[in-house]
């Protein structure tokens, strides 16, 4: 379900880490946020699905190629924070 308020940077990072850990069968603390998701073995399908689930989490539409353009959790969090701030400003 869409959230009523924009998630914080920390919430975004935690959400992404737990998603990626679940897909990879890893423990959340072992996920390196600076590592490319493709290098972790996530395929195109998982990357498109990830941005779809992110849409639901954040409550706004995202490009289906977001996780290709911003390939690590850290870069995703950065762009999402920027996007959310831009959108709420406009």
């Amino acid at each position: 379900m869409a959230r009523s308020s924009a998630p914080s940077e920390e919430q975004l990072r935690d959400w992404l880490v737990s998603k990626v850990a679940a897909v990879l069968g890893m423990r959340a603390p072992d996920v390196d946020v600076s590592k490319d998701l493709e290098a972790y073995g996530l395929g195109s399908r998982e990357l498109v699905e990830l941005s779809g689930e992110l849409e639901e989490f954040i409550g706004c539409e995202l490009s289906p190629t977001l996780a290709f353009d911003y390939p690590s959790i850290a870069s995703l969090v950065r762009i999402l924070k920027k996007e959310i701030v831009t959108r709420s400003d406009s």
Partner: protein
Amino acid sequence: MNQTIENPGTSKAAISYHYDIGNDFYRLFLDRNCCYSGAMYDEAVENESLDSAQERKLDYHIHESKASGAKRVLDVGCGWGGMLKRLVTVHRVALATGLTLSARQEDYIRAMALPGVEVRVESWSDHSPGELYDSIISVGAFEHFAKPGLEREARVRGYRDFYRYCHEWLKPGGWMSLQTIGLGALDRGTRGQFVFERVFPETDIPRLGEMADAAEGIFEIVKVRNDRMDYIRTGREFRARLRQNWSAAVKLVGEEIANRYDQYFRFSLAGFELGTTNLYRLTLRRIDRPRFDIRL
């Protein structure tokens, strides 16, 4: 007439699985003419509507196949009849014949009761026209001309049979305009392709080189365009319209199918954005001294 051939394309049952979900459902996200393929946008037109871009696409193929004012035109994979309607109402075509494998599409076209429009539920490989056609158009059907799991050679053979049939049905000097999604920067058979596994069963899209190889000696390729950006805009429109009409969609087809289409549009968009799929538009001219036996 042609000898019987083995058609390697999507079966009628698999076509029905996708296209017979319900006409009212498709109407929720398609344009007013129910065109279910990439539209053609003009960048000079600000905020162009889907209706307008789809009509430009129809007119483009009519122009490329020189169908305007023609006596007889064939539309292979006619969908819900948008092209057939445009041919007889705007372009003064005397008889526009459409082929589809979807019973619901046939119902839809018959209900329009357009003078000069004829629709048949049959595959191109079963088609046998009484008279030759002046032009042939096929938009969004070539994707269904080969099943997954075939070797390249078998796919090309199937496409070649299609061209051979079209050659036989067309008058000398006749033109054909095709539009299809094609495989881009991706290995064929890559696993985990949501769209082909969940949405379009028994479907495997062509590579441009396969379409070109198959045409050698039968049709000369006069023009090729890759307009994948057009499908990005079209797909965004499809998805936005589906989401705007979400409760109606769920009522018509249930949440599982509505969600599947929402996902399908996202995956489809990703493919066109990444260039793993392309949108090809080909203009072909019949070779009047053909070489069906040419060495490929």
